[in-house]
C-alpha cells in the first residue's frame, strides 16, 4: 500500500481553479520529483497536504488513514514535514533550541534539560554526518548547514514524508552531493521525499519517480529511468520542446570594458577585457567572487584598488551613479530584495533608474513613459494587463523582464546580470536567454553570473571561471561544459594551469 495517495484534488481561489483533479501517490522510501513550471500548482498541493490550505474536493490517504480535513498540527503529528525554500529558523537561537522549540525536554518545574537535548542532537548529527555544533547560534551557520538543520529537525520527530522545496538553490556542488547522500541513506530506512526542483540533472540523479503538473492539471507520472529531460521538459511546457543550440558566432572587435588589478571585498587583482557585443559568463562556486566582482564593477560594494575603463574612459567605482552614467547597468541577484519596489506599479518600477539619470528634467511625462513601456512590453513580451499593474502581481519571469526593461531604458551599453534566472521557470528562462542573445546582436555587452553552466553554455562567447576571488581560466564558447568548468572552479586543474601559463 502506498504511503500517501492524493486523488482528485481540486482547489480554487476566488473562483479561479488552481488545481483541477490532480493525483499524487507516494511509496515508502522513494524520492518523488514533483515537477511543473511556476504556477503549475505544486506549492498549492503541498500546502493542502501540510494543512496550510483546505482542499475543495478530493481524497487524501496517508499511512492508511483517510484524512478529511488536515490542520498544520495534525500533519506534523502524522510525520509530514515541509522544508521550505525560505528557511524557517530563528537566527538568534542556538541550533538545538531551534530543533526543540515548543517541544523542549524538561526536568520538571519547567527547568530545561539542556544536556539531554544537546546529546540527542549530537547523536542525530553524527548519524547524518552533519558537521554542525548543536550549541552554535543559527545566524553563524552557512546556508547549507541551515538546510541540513531544517531536515534534521524534521527527522528528529520521526518524519515519514519530507517535502523538499528547491533545497539546492543556495548550495554548492559539494554540499549538494552531501545532501543527496543523506537523502539516499534515509530512503533506505523508508523515509519518503517529495522533491521540488527546477534543475534537471539533480532530478535525474536523485529521483525514483516523477509527477508533472501543468496549469493546475495532472499531466503524467512515471519512473525517472524510463524518461528523459527533454520529454519531461516537454510535459512541463506543453508544446513540443527541443533543446536547440541558439548560439551563433559574431564578429567582435572593439574592447568596451577593461579591468586592471581590480580589487575589492571578495575579489583580488582581477584583470579582464571584454569586447563590445559579447556575452561573457561568470561562474564559480558560491563565494568564489564572481558575484562580488559584478557588484564591484557596478559600484554597489567597495572597491579598494585597481582600475576600470569603460569605452576607454576611466571610471571611479565607488558610486552606483557613476557606473550608470558610464552606461553600466546591473540586474541584481535576489530580485525581491534588490529590484522589486513593492508599492509601485510596473511603469514606476521600470522608470526608476532612468529617473535618476535624468533628474535635471524633474517633471514626468506620463504619456511618453507609457509609450516607452509599451515598446518594451512588446520587445520583451512582458505578460501584464497594463503599465499600472502592481509589480508584485507578476510572476518572477515577468518581473525580471520589467527590470531588464528598467536597465535597457537607461541606454546602458554593458549589462551585468547577476543570477538572472533565479526562481524562474523553464519557459521564462529560455525566453530570457533568447532576449540576451538578441540584445548582444544589437551591440549590447552582457556579463552573466550564474552557477548553472548549461545556461552559459547556450549563449556565452567566453566564460570566466572564478576561484577564490580571482579568474582562474577563461574558456572559449566551444570549451564550455560542466566538467571543464567544474575542474577549474574547484581548482582541480589550478596547478597545471599556472604551469601552462
Amino acid at each position, binding site marked *: 500500500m502506498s504511503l500517501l495517495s492524493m486523488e482528485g484534488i481540486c482547489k480554487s481561489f476566488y473562483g479561479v481553479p488552481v488545481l483541477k483533479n490532480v493525483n499524487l501517490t507516494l511509496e515508502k522510501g522513494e524520492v518523488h520529483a514533483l515537477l511543473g513550471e511556476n504556477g503549475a500548482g505544486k506549492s498549492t498541493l503541498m500546502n493542502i497536504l501540510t494543512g496550510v490550505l483546505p482542499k475543495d474536493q478530493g481524497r487524501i490517504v496517508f499511512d492508511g488513514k483517510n484524512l478529511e480535513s488536515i490542520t498544520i498540527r495534525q500533519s506534523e503529528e502524522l510525520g509530514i514535514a515541509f522544508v521550505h525554500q525560505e528557511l524557517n529558523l530563528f537566527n538568534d537561537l542556538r541550533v538545538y533550541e531551534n530543533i526543540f522549540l515548543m517541544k523542549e525536554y524538561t526536568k520538571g518545574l519547567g527547568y530545561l534539560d539542556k544536556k539531554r537535548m544537546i546529546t540527542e542532537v549530537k547523536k542525530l548529527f553524527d548519524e547524518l554526518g552533519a558537521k554542525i555544533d548543536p550549541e552554535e547560534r543559527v545566524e553563524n551557520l552557512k546556508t547549507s548547514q541551515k538546510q541540513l538543520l531544517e531536515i534534521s529537525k524534521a527527522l528528529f520527530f520521526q518524519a515519514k514524508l519530507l517535502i523538499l522545496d528547491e533545497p539546492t538553490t543556495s548550495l554548492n556542488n559539494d554540499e549538494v552531493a552531501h545532501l543527496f547522500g543523506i537523502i539516499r541513506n534515509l530512503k533506505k530506512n523508508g523515509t519518503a521525499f517529495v522533491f521540488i526542483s527546477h534543475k534537471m540533472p539533480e532530478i535525474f540523479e536523485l529521483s525514483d519517480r516523477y509527477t508533472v503538473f501543468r496549469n493546475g492539471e495532472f499531466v503524467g507520472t512515471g519512473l525517472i529511468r524510463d524518461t528523459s529531460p527533454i520529454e519531461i521538459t516537454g510535459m512541463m511546457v506543453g508544446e513540443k520542446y527541443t533543446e536547440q543550440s541558439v548560439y551563433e558566432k559574431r564578429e567582435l572587435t572593439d574592447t568596451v570594458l577593461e579591468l586592471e588589478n581590480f580589487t575589492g571585498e571578495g575579489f583580488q587583482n582581477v584583470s579582464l577585457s571584454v569586447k563590445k557585443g559579447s556575452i561573457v559568463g561568470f561562474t564559480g562556486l558560491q563565494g568564489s567572487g564572481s558575484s562580488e566582482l559584478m557588484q564591484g564593477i557596478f559600484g554597489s560594494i567597495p572597491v579598494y584598488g585597481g582600475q576600470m575603463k569603460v569605452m576607454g574612459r576611466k571610471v571611479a567605482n565607488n558610486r552606483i551613479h557613476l557606473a550608470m552614467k558610464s552606461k553600466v547597468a546591473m540586474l541584481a541577484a535576489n530580485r525581491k530584495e534588490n529590484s522589486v519596489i513593492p*508599492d509601485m506599479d510596473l511603469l514606476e518600477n521600470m522608470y526608476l533608474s532612468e529617473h535618476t539619470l535624468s533628474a535635471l528634467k524633474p517633471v514626468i511625462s506620463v504619456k511618453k513613459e507609457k509609450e516607452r513601456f509599451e515598446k518594451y512590453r512588446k520587445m520583451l513580451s512582458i505578460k501584464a494587463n497594463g503599465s499600472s499593474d502592481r509589480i508584485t502581481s507578476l510572476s518572477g519571469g515577468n518581473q525580471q523582464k520589467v527590470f531588464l526593461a528598467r536597465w535597457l531604458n537607461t541606454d546602458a551599453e554593458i549589462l551585468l546580470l547577476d543570477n538572472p534566472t533565479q526562481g524562474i521557470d523553464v519557459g521564462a528562462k529560455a525566453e530570457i536567454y533568447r532576449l540576451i542573445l538578441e540584445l548582444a546582436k544589437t551591440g549590447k555587452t552582457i556579463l552573466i553570473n550564474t552557477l548553472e553552466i548549461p545556461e552559459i553554455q547556450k549563449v556565452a562567447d567566453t566564460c570566466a571561471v572564478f576561484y577564490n576571488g580571482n579568474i582562474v581560466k577563461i574558456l572559449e564558447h566551444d570549451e564550455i561544459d560542466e566538467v571543464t568548468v567544474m575542474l577549474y572552479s574547484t581548482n582541480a586543474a589550478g596547478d597545471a594551469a599556472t604551469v601552462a601559463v
Partner: protein
Amino acid sequence: MNIKSGKKSSENPILKFCGANSYVVVFIAIFIVYAITSSGLTMNGVMNVLRHSAVIGIIGLGMGVICLTGEIDLSVGSMLALDGGLSVIVFNMTDSILLTLLFAVLFGALCGLVNGFMVGYVEMPAFIVTLATMLIFRSFAQYICQHIDKPFIGGGSSVYKMANDQSAYQAFYNFGNGKVLMIPIVGVILIGMTALFVYLTTSTKYGKKVYAVGSNPKGARMAGINVSAMKISVFTIAGALVGLGAFLWIAMNASADPATTGNSYEMYAIAAVVLGGISMSGGKGKCLGILFGAMSYTVIDKIIVSLKMDSLINNAIKGIILLIVIMVQIAGPRIREKLQKK
C-alpha cells in the same frame, strides 16, 4: 495603510473612492458632527478651520514626505518654537517681512539639514536623532529668550514678542490675519503648499524616488538612487516647511512662546499624516490626505469648544479618533476578506 479596494472590479465607484481616500470620509464625518453641535454654522467658522489648520498642515506636509521615506521627525514642534522665536528677533532687528520669511525658511532648512545629515549620512536612527534635537531646539528657544537683550524680544521676559513700534508690524499682522475673497491668507498658503506637494510627490521624478526609498531602500539603492541624499533632502524640506510654519505662526500671533509654542506638534503632525493614509513604514499614501488629516483635528478642537467641554479632554478625543480610524483601516480589509470567504 489605505483600504485596498481594487480586488473586485464590480464594486460601486463611490465605495471605491471612499476606500482609497478614507481621509475624506473621516473629515466629512467629523465635520457633520461639528455642523450639528455648533449652533449655526457660519462661513467665518468654516474658514477658521482652514486658518487654524495652516501651521499644523504645513508641518504635516513635511512630516508626510519624511514618513514616505520610512523615517520620522520628532523635533518639528521644538523647531517651530526656536525658529519662530529667532524669526521674531530678526523681525525686530530688520523691520522687514521679507527678510523674516527668508530667515525663517532658511533656518528651518538648516535645522532639518542637521537632522537629515545624522539620519541619512551617519545612518543614525531617526527616532533617536530627532528625539535629541527636539530637546536641543526647545532648550535653545527657552535659553535664548531668557538671556538675550530685552529689546530684541519686544521687551517681554519669557516670550518672543514682535515690537509693535516697527513700521512693518501692522502689515505683518494683517498678513497673518487677513483674507482674500473670504479665505484667510494663511489658508490659501496651506492649500497652495498642499497642491505643490501633491504635484511634487505624484508628478516629479523626485517624488517617485521618495516613494521608492520608503518602499524598498535596498532596491532603490540598486536602481541607482542615492538613498542617503534622499533622506537628507526630505529632512531639509521638512525643516524649511517648519520654517514657513513658524513664519505664519508669528504673523498670526505676533509672538512665540518658547515653552508652549509647538508643544506636541510632532504628535499632531504624525497623527495628521497617519489619518491622511500615509504608512509609517514608508512607501504608501498620498500627500492630499495630510490636508484633510490636519483639518480633521482642527474641527475636533472646534467641536469641543462648541460643546463647551473642558479643553483638557481634547487630546483624549483626538487619540480615540486616531485609534478608531486606524482600526478601521487595518481591520476593515480583514473583515471584508472573511465575509468574501463565507
